[in-house]
């Protein structure tokens, strides 16, 4: 027995103390080492307690207040604990990675203290967001999370692309928080309380419920990156330092999902059309997310689009859950929400693995363009193996964890078709086909990047490839998690089931009734057969001989690195199919004559949502705003005065209102 609240605060204090190290210690290396040790120690303390609380719900008490903080300001229900556990599970490897990542910058002679402070601040604020119960404090920490991520993101602020990309993230966050203000204020007016756990909507007021749902979907959906609000992800991720982008993609976008779950708890049952809206939007998000990813050549941009795809998959599960709640159907809710929640964990694990991996690659090669890479497998085989593990997991193919959550979501389709009859079998079949299509595209995409980045021979100039022990530890831990959740899903299913029963109070055993033992046995069998065959062929090679030779090249033997297939040519055929929505176009000029001069080829793709909606809309907004001409349009002091006047007006109105 231990007190969860005390453990949580102790861990938060240790983590917060780590920020002091770079402030008071002069030497960069020493400060970084001390800070990271403290941070990881704090995270592990927190993780142990939240892990025990999630997986062994009986072993803890919530405990009373700490430091005179009112106990009701914090909420340690299963949902909060689950997200806390996910956050910390990802934060530990990311923090370990951060040490060697900062080492790289220190080697370049940069001051990394600011990056560390914002990184640690981001971790701490995120852990607070998922446990806070008071709406205003929630908003404060929500803002702290977003802003520390932003400040970390602009670490290389002298670069033009960094300034541009981070600006979208900055604006997005403020739109989100503006919508959240409205959301929470309406709820506060309804209930007179500021506690999230007290928020309710009077039953029968369907107009207000719908409005609040739309607000929550817009705000949290924008944070999560649903289409058409995904525009900030492919801009912000590539320019952020890898530690920030890993956490941004692994965890911070999941805060949107967390918010949606909280909103659902407040507003349930969802109207049917909300359920369908979520399902359809998520389906579009998933399919186009992965298709846009396929057309990218920038590794981090590509991974960012994959985050969009995975948010879509999570949303599909939530959509099924919402539809289930509209029909008061328990099994659908359990499977839909369960699949979504497990995918939150899975995606957090494999996406941070992939982003951290891309950080290692970026540091070594100094480029994010996959067309210039190749042949890494011959220099760092085990690193490639780890990255490959994450790739297999994210494709949702057996035997790793991605399959498990997608399997639950597929099951929720089957359940919906069986339970609701009518036109549902058809609709659910279309959803299943959509999800299968996403899986197929993901396979195409991840074979592309793994093949182009790692296999064959190096395309650009050859550089040494160094992976530090810390990189191996952090990537290894995450890869191991992928394997464990894949082969042995039962404890994780139990944990998710526990969370779901907090969201769907009636409860049910649909998640537990899936025969998980089969999955474990089959995956083990699969690996056993594969390993056996591998060793048999190895033995046979020894017996019957083995040698290496040049690759077949129609009788020639001048196979150069530049003759290898490139990422654009690999994906060309698939992109051609969706030329219009991808904005995919090619430019080529072939040399003519017997001795042709140089020839070239390039292919480009554009994000249609971006080009047609977001950017024109933004421009229109700017021109509209600049049409309003106030005196002193160029002097910042006038603006300060305007703000002051507005505050006074608001205060007076507010004072008279009461």
């Amino acid at each position, binding site marked *: 027995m231990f007190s969860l609240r005390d453990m949580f605060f102790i861990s938060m204090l240790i983590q917060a103390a780590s920020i002091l190290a770079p402030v008071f210690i002069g030497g960069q290396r020493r400060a970084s080492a001390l800070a990271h040790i403290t941070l990881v120690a704090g995270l592990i303390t927190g993780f142990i307690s939240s892990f025990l609380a999630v997986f062994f719900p009986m072993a803890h008490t919530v405990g009373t207040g700490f430091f005179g903080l009112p106990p009701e300001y914090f909420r340690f229900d299963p949902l909060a604990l689950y997200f806390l556990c996910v956050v910390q599970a990802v934060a530990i490897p990311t923090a370990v990675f951060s040490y060697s990542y900062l080492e790289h910058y220190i080697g370049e002679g940069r001051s990394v203290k600011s990056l560390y402070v914002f990184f640690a601040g981001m971790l701490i604020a995120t852990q607070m967001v998922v446990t806070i119960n008071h709406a205003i404090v929630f908003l404060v920490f929500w803002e702290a999370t977003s802003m520390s991520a932003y400040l970390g993101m602009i670490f290389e602020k002298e670069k033009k692309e960094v300034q541009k990309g981070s600006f979208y993230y900055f604006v997005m966050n403020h739109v989100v928080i503006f919508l959240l203000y409205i959301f929470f204020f309406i709820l506060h007016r309804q209930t007179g309380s500021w506690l999230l756990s007290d928020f309710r909507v009077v039953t029968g007021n369907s107009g207000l419920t719908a409005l609040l749902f739309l607000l929550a979907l817009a705000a949290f959906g924008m944070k999560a990156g649903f289409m058409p609000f995904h525009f900030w992800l492919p801009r912000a991720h590539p320019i952020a330092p890898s530690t920030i982008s890993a956490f941004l993609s692994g965890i911070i976008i999941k805060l949107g999902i967390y918010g949606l779950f909280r909103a659902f708890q407040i507003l349930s049952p969802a109207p049917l059309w909300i359920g369908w809206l979520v399902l359809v939007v998520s389906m579009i998000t998933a399919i186009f997310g992965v298709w846009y990813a396929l057309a990218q050549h920038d590794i981090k941009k590509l991974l960012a689009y994959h985050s969009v795809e995975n948010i879509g998959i999570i949303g599909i599960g939530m959509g099924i859950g919402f539809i289930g709640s509209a029909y008061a159907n328990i099994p659908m809710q359990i499977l839909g929400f369960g699949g979504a929640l497990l995918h939150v964990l899975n995606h957090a694990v494999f996406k941070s693995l992939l982003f951290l991996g891309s950080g290692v690659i970026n540091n070594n090669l100094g480029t994010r363009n996959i067309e210039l890479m190749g042949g890494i497998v011959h220099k760092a085989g085990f690193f490639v193996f780890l990255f490959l593990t994450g790739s297999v997991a994210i494709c949702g193919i057996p035997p790793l964890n991605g*399959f498990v959550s997608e399997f639950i979501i597929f099951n929720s389709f*089957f359940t919906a*078709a069986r339970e609701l009859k009518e036109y549902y079998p*058809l609709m659910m079949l279309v959803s299943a086909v959509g999800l*299968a299509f996403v899986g197929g595209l993901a396979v*195409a995409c991840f*074979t592309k990047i793994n093949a182009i980045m790692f296999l064959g021979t190096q395309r650009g100039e050859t550089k040494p490839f160094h992976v530090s022990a810390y990189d191996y530890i952090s990537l290894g831990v995450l890869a191991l998690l992928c394997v464990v959740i894949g082969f042995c899903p039962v404890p994780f299913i139990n944990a998710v089931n526990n969370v779901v029963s907090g969201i769907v109070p009636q409860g049910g055993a649909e998640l537990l009734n899936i025969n998980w033992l089969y999955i474990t046995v089959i995956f083990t069998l699969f690996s056993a057969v594969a390993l056996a065959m591998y060793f048999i062929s190895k033995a*046979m090679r020894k017996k019957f001989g083995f040698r290496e030779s040049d*690759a077949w090249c129609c009788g020639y033997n001048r196979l150069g690195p530049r003759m290898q297939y490139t990422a654009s040519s690999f994906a060309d055929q698939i992109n051609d*199919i969706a030329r219009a929505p991808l904005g995919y176009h090619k430019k080529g000029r072939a040399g003519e004559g017997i001795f042709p001069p140089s020839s070239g080829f390039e292919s480009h793709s554009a994000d249609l949502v971006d080009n047609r909606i977001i950017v024109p809309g933004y421009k229109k907004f700017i021109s509209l705003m600049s049409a309003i001409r106030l005196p002193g349009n160029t002097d910042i002091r006038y603006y300060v005065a305007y703000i002051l006047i507005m505050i006074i007006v608001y205060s007076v109105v507010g004072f008279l209102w009461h």
Partner: protein
Amino acid sequence: MALMNIFEGLASLFFVLLFAPLFAGLVNKQKAMMTGRVGAPVWQPYYDLFKLFRKETIRAKSASFISGLSPAINFAAVIIAASMLPVCNAHPLISFKGDIILFAYILGTARFFQILAAMDIGSSFEGMGASREASFAIFVEPIFFFTLGSIAFITGFTSISDIYRSIAMDRMSYTVFIVVCSISFFILAVTECSRMPVDDPNTHLELTMIHEVMILDNSGQDLFFYQYSGNIKLLIYIVLETAFYYPLGAGLTAVGVTIFALNILFVSFVLAGVETVTSRFKLKDMPHYLLFAAAIGILNLLIFTFNK
């Protein structure tokens, strides 16, 4: 009973593993006869496999551990898929609620590693094959769900053997549905197993190949595993195709096995016939052909849903 089930399952798996090369040989022999050649004996695939197994393995210099891993993973995936097959409506070795998803996805794993292994060589020949395989594969799983999956959604059964049993029990109401589904499924089988008109298994020019060019640089045991997995995969799809028409009552009896064998023979005849009379489509047109199969699936389902 449980022991009996396991026995039946093992027997089915054994059957598939044993007769997969024979089926490939059968198709090739019939194709040769239809085009007026004598052709290789039906046992030729066995000779080939035996020969490959005992040969020296040569790998490209640029190959990595992927090239060694991929044949084994391919074979393991195909074995798992094969153990879900309801041969003669017998109880498969692996059968649980939702195994239809596992079936589709485990073949995805095989494909993933096959494509990677092809790219591992670093030659543009293999790259070409891998790119084509990847782009056709994105349609494979959707078509699979439109055919076998649609029955799962309509009957409510999610295990492959249950799905086939349920349509066998109520064949009257599903007649049209089954016929159309089986046609779509045939297209799927042709695509997945790289047969005509999607891919020409006997082509001699690297530029026109899809599957064959991916294993161009493999030899010895690696090629053995690829070839053998390919044979098994073909038989898997053919067994699933025939199972649409397999009568319920005839289980693992003498009559049942005869019907089953005749069914398989018939499908091999059709496959050889199709390969004789068609030539390979242009690569550019392939998505249309595959989308056509998907479209049949959608249409079929709409009719079924609104015609109740």
